[in-house]
């Protein structure tokens, strides 16, 4: 569990009053991405095989994580970069603040990064008098609005162009029209000036290649290139789960990522950064710092079921197909990673006391596992986490509560002994008739009262054997 304690995530309470605009906007985005993904998958015959290989490589990396992280550190240093280890979120914030102060940074431009959201870096920088500006268009918009992301790929999808125009007009003191092209142009102009004047660029990473100490960063807008090219200082904050063995492995993940995320074959820009610039003429930072963030990840590794969450390559495909996510949107999950992956990530990172509702924010339909490019068994982990919610975060299979074992013991006895079963099926209708009112059972004694509190119980009419023999008889009479 991470060092910072997290406020309780009230998924149920939030979902009781979702603004009507959210499901419609989110469904528009998810259906676009689902369609795009399906088209890309259909044209790549080896996609299924790539998923399996991707899954195998990620599992292999998790099993050997210390080995690959050690190699990564050595390779980054050999390339002229500096590596910092952050055991906690607070460590990571202090490392970044110290670097920023050493370089007298006033303005930091940021490329979308989940790790910096996780450690709430922007607050820490602002508290130290350093402006931290999000530069991905969607992130820029929600930073102006002061809200969180509603979707991992299109974080501001819940806002209409009229709302964004009003936001720009208010915060930027301009007269912004409600036109996506014009709003994009305004943001380009404002942010262009910031890229050129910022003293520090902050990013995350999509992958870290252990073999050569290379940071791989994918963007469509080009803000990632700006942040890692224009300022003299580049600081990347990256979770220790992002490491992959080598460039051969990278071929697999680059083929899976954009296809699964946005339905592109590749995102517009993919950068491969090994250390700082080598010559003053080429542009790029003079200094490159890599902050490797643990923040509870190494503890999660103890749980062989739960740790498969670290296979995740953050594509968002699971959210796009999730019937729950499509109806509640990203805010409901109360954390910066939402959807099914958030429902298995947050409880492990924040502990089940804070995120105990999230493992239940699922119908267990399995659509997420079917599209996951690295085959994370999300429903299995959800069930596993439900058990941890019920029994505590200890991983040893605790004893079943006494009531459940007693009931299941009785049930297996009844099912094994024919006469008990037959007797029971005769007895039940009789017992139920005591409670029957107008063909339903409105209230029943405990433990069935837990059901009837919400809705009436249909009365038990006949056993399966009776039903089957009635059905067989009527079939015989009916000519086909």
């Amino acid at each position, binding site marked *: 569990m991470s060092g910072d304690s997290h406020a309780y995530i009230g998924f149920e309470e939030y979902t009781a009053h979702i603004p009507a605009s959210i499901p419609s906007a989110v469904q528009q*985005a998810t259906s676009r991405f689902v369609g795009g993904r399906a088209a890309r998958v259909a044209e790549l015959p080896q996609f299924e*095989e790539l998923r399996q*290989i991707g899954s*195998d*490589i990620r599992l*292999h990396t998790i*099993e*050997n*994580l*210390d*080995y690959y*992280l050690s190699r990564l550190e050595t390779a980054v240093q050999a390339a002229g970069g500096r590596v910092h*280890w*952050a*055991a906690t979120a607070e460590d990571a914030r202090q490392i970044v603040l110290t670097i920023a102060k050493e370089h007298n940074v006033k303005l930091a431009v940021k490329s979308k990064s989940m790790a910096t959201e996780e450690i709430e870096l922007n607050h820490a920088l602002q508290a130290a008098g350093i402006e931290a500006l999000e530069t991905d*268009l969607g992130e820029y918009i929600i930073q102006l609005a002061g809200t969180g992301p509603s979707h991992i790929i*299109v974080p501001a999808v819940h806002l209409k*162009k009229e709302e964004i125009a009003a936001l720009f007009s208010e915060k930027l003191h301009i007269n912004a029209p409600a036109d*996506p*092209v014009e709003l*994009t142009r305004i*943001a*380009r102009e404002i*942010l*262009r000036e910031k890229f*050129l004047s910022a003293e520090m660029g902050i990013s995350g990473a999509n992958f870290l290649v252990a073999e*050569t100490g290379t940071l791989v960063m994918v963007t*469509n*807008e*080009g*803000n990632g*290139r*700006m942040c890692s*090219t*224009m300022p003299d200082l580049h600081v990347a904050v990256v979770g*220790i789960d992002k490491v992959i063995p*080598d*460039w*051969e*492995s990278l*071929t*697999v993940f680059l083929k899976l990522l954009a296809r699964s995320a946005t339905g592109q*074959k*590749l*995102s*517009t*820009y993919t*950068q491969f*950064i*090994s*250390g700082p*610039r*080598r010559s*003053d*003429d*080429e*542009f*790029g930072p003079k200094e490159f710092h890599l902050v490797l963030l*643990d923040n509870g990840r*190494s503890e999660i590794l103890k749980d062989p079921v739960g740790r498969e969450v670290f296979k995740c390559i953050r594509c968002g495909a699971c959210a796009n197909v999730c019937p729950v996510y499509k109806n509640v949107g990203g805010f409901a999950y109360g954390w910066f990673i939402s959807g099914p992956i958030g429902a298995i990530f947050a409880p492990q990172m924040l502990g089940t006391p804070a995120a105990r509702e999230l493992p239940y924010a699922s119908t267990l339909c399995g659509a997420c596992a079917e599209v996951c490019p690295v085959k994370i068994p999300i429903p299995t982990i959800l069930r596993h986490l439900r058990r941890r919610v019920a029994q505590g975060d200890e991983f040893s299979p605790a004893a079943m509560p006494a009531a459940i074992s007693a009931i299941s013991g009785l049930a297996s006895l009844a099912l094994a002994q024919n006469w008990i079963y037959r007797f029971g099926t005769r007895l039940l209708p009789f017992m139920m008739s005591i409670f029957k009112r107008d063909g339903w059972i409105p209230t029943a004694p405990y433990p069935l009262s837990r059901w009837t509190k919400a809705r009436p119980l249909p009365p038990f009419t006949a056993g399966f054997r009776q039903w089957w023999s009635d059905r067989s008889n009527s079939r015989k009479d009916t000519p086909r």
Partner: protein
Amino acid sequence: MSNPVIENIRKSLGRSGDWLVSQRPAIYPAYPSRATQDEMAAFLGEVRKLSGAAQQITLKELAEALKRLVAENGIRKATVWNTPDLQPLGLDSILDELGVELVAPNADKHEMALCDLGITSADYLLPETGTLVLRSSGEKPRAVSLLPRIHLAIVRPAMLRADMHQVFAEAKDSHYLVFITGPSRTADIELTVTLGVHGPKNLFVWMMPDTDM
């Protein structure tokens, strides 16, 4: 030397030392190479699908094509890579004759940002995705393909590789690489695709025969 994070990972995984407990799974083999003509057609087709303008061109047609590009896009300032494959093309003198001001590719970033056009070559091309692969060096500054509002890449069939496996095998020791797959784009406002949010708004790719120098 070890550190607390690595130590904690080892403890959680029940590992005692710095060695692999399993072999890295085999990866999917690279796509086989095809005839150059097929790879070229696939590459140019993909660039067009991404709203880039892609065409084949000869050295003789170059001056005329540049003239049209400059006129149609109102280009007043340009910056060009200093690479051995671009230098013999005489781009500087053609642009100069067209009245375009040339900015050195290693000029100050504020100056570079005022350029309308950046001209680069490429190191590799990927047909499957219509991707330009660019290395970085003193003669290949990164800003030329990033800051100007229009990016023109003059490329050669010899740069085509069947798959990214070959590119990585040749270039993984490079300290910086960028894959450029179409012009800068976003769909962050109401999912409306808009080009040129931070990087170039327009991408032109001109494929010139290997022998035209």
